[in-house]
């Protein structure tokens, strides 16, 4: 298993990563998730200004063989989306934790941070899915 699991972010069970910066969360999908999807060909992100509840569907990532949903890791309003990946969706494959980030959320319920899981827990989850 050669996936990257950065230590400075939190994770969800639905394979998103979350980088917390005060009341803003930067969200992307994990290295494991992009491996599972394969070559990504299209990404549909929500519009800036839209607000979603935690665990609701905020967008889609389509690869040559499947379609994955982008699940909101935390409730809030979309304040920025990564416009670069619309033109270059493969950035999510090559740099899931860097240039391939998806969106920034203004967190509306800070206590929901407790629902996110740690790097260690996420590694265990991936191990169990791999097995």
């Amino acid at each position: 298993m050669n996936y990257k699991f950065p230590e400075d972010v939190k994770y969800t069970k639905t394979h998103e990563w979350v980088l917390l910066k005060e009341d803003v969360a930067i969200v992307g999908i994990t290295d494991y998730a992009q491996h599972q999807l394969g070559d990504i060909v299209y990404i549909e992100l929500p519009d800036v200004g839209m607000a979603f509840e935690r665990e609701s569907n905020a967008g889609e990532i389509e690869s040559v063989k499947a379609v994955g949903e982008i699940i909101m890791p935390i409730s809030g309003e979309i304040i920025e989306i990564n416009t670069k990946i619309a033109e270059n969706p493969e950035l999510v494959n090559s740099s899931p934790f860097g240039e391939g980030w998806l969106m920034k959320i203004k967190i509306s319920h800070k206590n929901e941070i407790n629902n996110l899981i740690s790097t260690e827990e996420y590694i265990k989850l991936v191990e169990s899915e791999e097995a």
Partner: protein
Amino acid sequence: MVFKVDFIPHDNKTISDMLDVIGLKSIEDLFQDIPNDLILKTLNLPSGLSESDLLNELKKLSKKNKIYISSFLGAGCYYHYIPSIVDFIISRSEFYTSYTPYQAEASQGFLQAIYEYQSIITRLTAMDVANASMYDGSTALAEAALMATIITRKNKILLVEGIHPEYIEVVKTYCWGQEIEYKLIPLSLLEKELNEEYAAVLIQSPNFFGEIENVEDIVKTVKNTFPKCLIVHVMTDPTCLGILRSPGEQSIDIFVAEGQSFGISPSFGGPGLGIFATKKEFLRKIPGRLVGKTREINGEREGFILTLQAREQHIRREKASSNICTNQALCSLAALIYLLCMGKNGLKELAVQNIQKTNYAKEKLSKIPGYKILNTKPTYNEFLLECPNIDLFIKNCDELDLLPPLRLSKYYNHMKNIVLVCITEMNSRTSIDKFIQAAKSASKISMEVK
């Protein structure tokens, strides 16, 4: 009840084994959800016939058909001339199947035909993309409504009066299943009723009453106030595109039509062809199949493929925007051959003939005492005619072997004396004059009665 199993490749032992597994006693138990009074108890069929006896029997039956020399019935299903080459080509064994090919990429010829169909529809409509076709105009319209709710993430749609009443029923059925709210309003109330909660406005033009709406103005009105609200334009006889401005030029978001007029016989009302076209920005939300052209990885040869399939139900299940995973392949092929055969000039000539012949009939009819043309807007090949004695008029038509026009009371109870007349290039001057004669003699008698 005893089920005969002659044609089912299971013996009694296999059947009872299978029933054991699922915990049922008999095959009838599988049908317990069907109310008892709906289950067929006996099927009263005569004994078998030899081929020659059967042919005689069928000939006798066919004598019961009434053959009309000319039709004045439209209302969603139209008589247009079908060039012989259409049936000749679609009857070839390579093409003669009604479905999208399975193992699609192994059927390059058919995929190319679908690709050409998509291309010709985009040329005709000036829309960016067209799908491989759908069942008919009504389901295409309902799919368009669904697609609009998915694109806009709103669950209300506005239907403008003048949409074919049967199409409205189909849209309602789709809405019911998807928990989409709908409202049917007259065009005059559009501005008043529209608000930001609506995903789309659905409008038919030429509408069910034959009138050509000013679609461009309607688009402007809607988009000025609610730029995100989508406009779905539907038509039942797209031969009018030979002369009317295309939906693409009028900034329509989703265009759908019944394609039966393109080389498909009216038969008994079907099969039809659902034409579906939209803007490029909505490509990923389009229902149904799409055929694309591609190039071999190691080589220069071009090939055709089913593309963007991740949208489709067989991959996405409940998340797909539509559960359509096939197309109306044979009918779309007929439409393709028809349009190729007609060409740009042919289709224009056809549309002009439809308008001219219709105008000729309108003018003559309006001069008969007691008759009135009810349309206030321009018409294509259909119009509303108020009759002094509708029953007699229709009887006269029938006696002259003219398929009578539609009584509007079939759909609108209060429109007792109104017929929807359809005149196409198939109606000769002689037959139109006969039709006018039928009207005249229904006018005199009713006046004498008065």
